[in-house]
């Protein structure tokens, strides 16, 4: 199941369109996942989770936000003052010049305009910088928090929440929020202040002319409201369509080998042309909204200006208003309609930010499945005795994978665990490393419940190697040192020599300093696995768990690793999980598991010698395959 929280609906509430049906024919049915749900929720307002997170993020910056508000109010006041001052210039400054050539009133007004201009410029600058700082701080804190949260969440969470989604939460979603903080606040505050400020000034300048101008406001509100709702809808459709295009594109290119080998090109093109055109239609819908909205606001603005010109001209003719007032009106109306253009942009930013907030809030609400202890016990050195003390475990309630396990692995013993898929071998390993917590009983390391150890202590003592031999960007030496960064070069070399990995690493162009991302890309799967082994051995844990760790190796490499294991495992507790018996040979003790229970337990020789039982028959089949 892609997510446990999905609801089983193929499409939103509307009946599927023809295009949707066409798409479903090849795309198949699936649960709606949380991300899609978050996208669908957006309706031009902030949802509950989104609002809560936004408030949480902004609260620490309350003081800066007040400063910011101060700067923006001053800036807008200065900006709004300028047309008024132009009016004063015309009405108060000009007459003295006409009468007796006195330019002092005019110069006085011009001086005030100059001051207003400078104030506006300075406060604008401060505003932009402050806004940037708040935005960047919020962004930084958010990134930190999300990253650490993903780190804290249990592997069980990461099993269902794919890495692709983890990445997009930390990139595109975080950036969408920044974009809203950067452009949204500015645009919104500016529009609001302009709206109310202009209304006030217009009424102050002249009530009648002011009221006539304000007739345009309801039209604007209606138009904007329509646009907000319509664009929320079309935003959603566009996002869905572009996601289809991207997925199909990326998968066809990523799987081009299969595409070409199976002559899939024509069918792929057919599908791509279809989703590409659906995306075009969706975009066309979104663009058309703007096509109505932008000229719509322009029309309202122009009609208002024409009405003000006619009526204002008449009032000026009768002497009720001065030429300066008329001029100021025209300038104010211009200023007023300009920020409306930004609103169309703002809504898209807002949509994606609100969906992003919703998704991030969803992630941050996830509790870590294996919480850190509040009062961790100290365990500086571990002998390595593992005790599964009446352990029960189930992934899904009522269907136990391990019903009730009582098992002690003495310090220093090498134990092999075999059994069919689903027998609970890997679960055993995951309980010992605390990737999961048991639903009953306790796992004890040297008698201490592992839940009482903080994760760094536990994992210093218990290390697991799986088939996942991930190499981090950086040098090979850095990768080997990952578990113990303070290790010397001699120790690194000692670890690789024990594994027989020293030769191929030395043969690389820059030896241990070879960058994994560059030449390291040529490491074979087996070689990468040897590096992963070296990493584990260098970490020097008391308990080492190998979960199918050798199954991606070819036989010569596997043989090499086994030879190394005999020496490396001496003196530590080891659990080796394998479905190939070759790995089992070096064990002191074999456990055969079935349905979460240990059904056979003994030394490999004894179990084979008994001649009956599952291990003996597995061993026979294996010998036969080698013949």
């Amino acid at each position: 199941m892609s997510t446990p929280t999905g609801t089983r609906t193929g499409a939103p509430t509307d009946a599927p369109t023809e295009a949707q049906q066409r798409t479903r024919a090849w795309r198949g049915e699936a649960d709606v996942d949380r991300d899609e749900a978050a996208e669908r929720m957006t309706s031009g307002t902030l949802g509950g989770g989104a609002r809560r997170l936004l408030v949480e993020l902004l609260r620490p910056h309350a003081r800066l936000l007040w400063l910011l508000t101060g700067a923006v109010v001053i800036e807008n006041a200065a900006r709004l003052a300028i047309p008024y001052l132009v009016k004063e210039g015309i009405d108060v400054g000009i007459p003295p010049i006409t009468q007796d050539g006195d330019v002092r009133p005019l110069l006085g007004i011009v001086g005030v305009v100059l001051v207003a201009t400078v104030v506006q410029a300075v406060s604008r600058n401060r505003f932009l910088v402050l806004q940037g700082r708040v935005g960047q701080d919020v962004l930084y804190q958010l990134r930190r928090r999300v990253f650490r949260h993903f780190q804290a969440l249990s592997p069980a969470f990461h099993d269902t929440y794919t890495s692709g989604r983890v990445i997009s939460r930390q990139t595109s979603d975080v950036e969408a929020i920044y974009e809203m903080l950067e452009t949204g606040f500015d645009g919104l505050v500016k529009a609001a202040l302009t709206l109310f400020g202009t209304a006030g000034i217009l009424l102050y300048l002249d009530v009648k002319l002011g009221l006539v101008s304000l007739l345009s406001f309801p039209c604007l509100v209606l138009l904007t409201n329509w646009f907000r709702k319509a664009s929320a809808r079309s935003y959603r459709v566009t996002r869905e369509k572009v996601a289809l295009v991207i997925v199909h594109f990326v998968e066809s290119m990523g799987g081009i080998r299969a595409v070409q080998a199976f002559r899939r090109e024509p069918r792929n093109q057919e599908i791509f042309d279809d989703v590409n055109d659906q995306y075009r239609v969706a975009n066309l819908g979104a663009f058309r909204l703007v096509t109505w909205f932008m000229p719509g606001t322009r029309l309202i603005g122009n009609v208002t200006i024409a009405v003000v010109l006619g009526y204002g001209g008449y009032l000026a003719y009768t002497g009720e208003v001065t030429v300066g007032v008329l001029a100021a009106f025209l300038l104010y109306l211009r200023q007023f309609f300009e920020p409306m253009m930004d609103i169309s942009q703002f809504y898209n930013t807002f949509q994606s930010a609100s969906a992003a907030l919703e998704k991030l809030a969803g992630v941050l609400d996830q509790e870590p499945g294996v919480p850190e202890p509040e009062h961790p016990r100290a365990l500086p050195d571990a002998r390595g005795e593992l005790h599964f003390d009446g352990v029960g475990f189930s992934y899904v309630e009522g269907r136990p994978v391990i019903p009730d396990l009582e098992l002690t692995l003495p310090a220093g013993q090498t134990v092999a665990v075999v059994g069919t898929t689903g027998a609970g071998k890997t679960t055993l390993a995951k309980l010992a490393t605390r990737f999961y917590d048991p639903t009953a009983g306790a796992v004890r390391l040297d008698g201490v419940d592992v839940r009482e150890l903080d994760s760094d202590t536990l994992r210093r003592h218990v290390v697991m190697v799986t088939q996942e031999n991930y190499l981090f960007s950086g040098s090979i030496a850095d990768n080997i040192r990952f578990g113990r960064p303070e290790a010397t070069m001699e120790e690194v070399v000692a670890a690789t020599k024990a594994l027989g990995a020293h030769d191929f690493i030395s043969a690389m162009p820059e030896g241990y300093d070879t960058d994994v991302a560059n030449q390291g890309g040529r490491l074979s799967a087996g070689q990468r696995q040897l590096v992963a082994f070296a990493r584990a051995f260098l970490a020097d844990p008391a308990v080492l768990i190998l979960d199918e760790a050798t199954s991606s190796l070819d036989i010569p490499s596997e043989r090499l690793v086994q030879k190394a294991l005999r020496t490396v495992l001496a003196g530590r507790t080891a659990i080796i999980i394998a479905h190939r018996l070759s790995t089992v040979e070096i064990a002191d003790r074999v456990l055969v598991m079935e349905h979460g229970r240990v059904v056979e337990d003994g030394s490999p020789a004894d179990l084979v010698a008994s001649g009956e039982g599952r291990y003996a028959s597995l061993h026979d089949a294996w010998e036969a395959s080698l013949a």
Partner: protein
Amino acid sequence: MTMATSSSRALTGPDPDVQPPAGVHSLWRLRGYLYPYRWQLLFMLLAALAGVGLSLAIPLVTAAIIDGPVTDGEIGMLPALAALALALGVLEAVLIFARRWVQNKAVLGLETTLRGDLYARLQQLPMSFHTRWQSGQLLSRATTDLSLIRRFSGFGMLFLLTNIVQLVVTCVILLLMYWPLGLVVAAVSVPIIWLSMRFEKSYVVVSRQVQDEQGDLATRAEEAAVAIRVIKSFGRSEHVSAQYERAAEQLRATSMRKVRMSATFWTFLEGIPNLAVVVVLALGAWGVGTDRLTPGQLVAFITLMLSLVWPVSSLGVILAMAQESMTASARILEIFDTEPAIVGGTRTIERPRGHLRFEGVRFAFPDEPGEDVLKGVDLELAPGETVALVGATGAGKTLLTALVPRLWDVTGGRVTLDGVDVRDLDLTHLRTLVATAFEDPTLFSMSARENLTLGRADATEAEIEEALEVAQAQFVHDLPWGLDTRIGEQGMSLSGGQRQRLALARAVLARPSVIVLDDTLSALDVHTETLVEAALRRVLADTTGLIVAHRASTVLLADRVALLQDGVITHVGDHRELLATVPAYRDLLAAEDERAEEMSA
């Protein structure tokens, strides 16, 4: 040196890490895509120019109203002039609407066609191209680059032209109206244009740095996500988080530099025109006072001047956009210019028997032309025969199998099918005859059925059922929507073994004459492997099979085994026979062997 690089470039196609040279010619070469919309473009241009005229005319009407009816008391003209202002205002809105309406259709059509063509070309390009380009790099061409071109061809190109026209015409009008003020405006425009062009340059540098650092941060996030289990296994979350935070802090510092830079720029950009207003107000009011200028003209003047702010300040942005879209076009053309190196022949095989021969096959990767990976492979598979291919990791086994359906082409020798060189065969026909089940099975985010019938869209239910049974993949029926369940990255997640079984079913369903199994059973547990092998024997009985094998159990499916060593087939024979007589073979397939070795040592 230059010749060497250019010739190797010719062999391998464009390099994803090198930015192609871009210029006006790059954009010009895409003109063919605009051609179908030439009338629309012409209309858009005329509408935009008319819009410029209107935005000039409205302030002039304002001036006439203030000077005529108001100042001189000619009230009779007022209704006519007001009606004119209204008509012009409505006309302007209508023109904007019409231009945008036409523009939407044209530019989206352009973008969609380009994207479709790009996809088509990419599907034709061979593996030698795709192994060097990650799908993410290709995606950014199909999305970001295309929308840059779309925006420039719809919006940028148009406004580059009209803004210049508006700037020139307005300056002329202002100069005619009252030349000292006209000069002020013209003089102010120069520093703004200069400033915005200079700003764009340094801004682009910082933006690049921010982008790089964002990319770095994204890489770290990706690493931490993909390697979460390794990080947890070693208890190193703290270490990784600290690294991430350092990078995030670095990004914050750089971003603040960008913020400060753009704050300064916008301050000047808004400040300079406002200062001009101060000068214009002072000079203009004095001019009105001394009868050199009418009040209406002063108002018109200030309005016109303010209407220039956007066209002037946006010139820098639009020029930067032009630059970006040239780069984007060059990046796209680079892919259109790459010729598909693998083109099919014309021959077909009427009654295919599946007689496969490798004759002195040599192969070298295009970026290392001197180093042959395969150095003369000779191998013959009789119709219906199954041969296992054994060799050390990196010996070139997978590569050898990929030469049959021409995912790669031989660089020497030839591969024949029923006596015909595969390069002479029609490509689609060849790939109908050969089907491969790959080691890492590629599943697409589509229904299980669509994934299964990849090679044969017209397969019947019964045939699908049969293939599922051979591959022991009946589990698909237990999925929530059965065969209609979406699988892959965006759907149900399947285990490695389940994925391999689907890939096998897919190859079986294609009913090929030659089936290639590239270590297809590696992720299956022993029990399932036995069941699959039993079923596979039936399929392989009358199909030619080439099996890449790492385990003895898989080798046993084959009639004969071929050992690939150092680029040649050194031994061909029966499994037991090779095990007994060839030490290198024993070394590869017998884990038991070690004890014997130790005893003898």
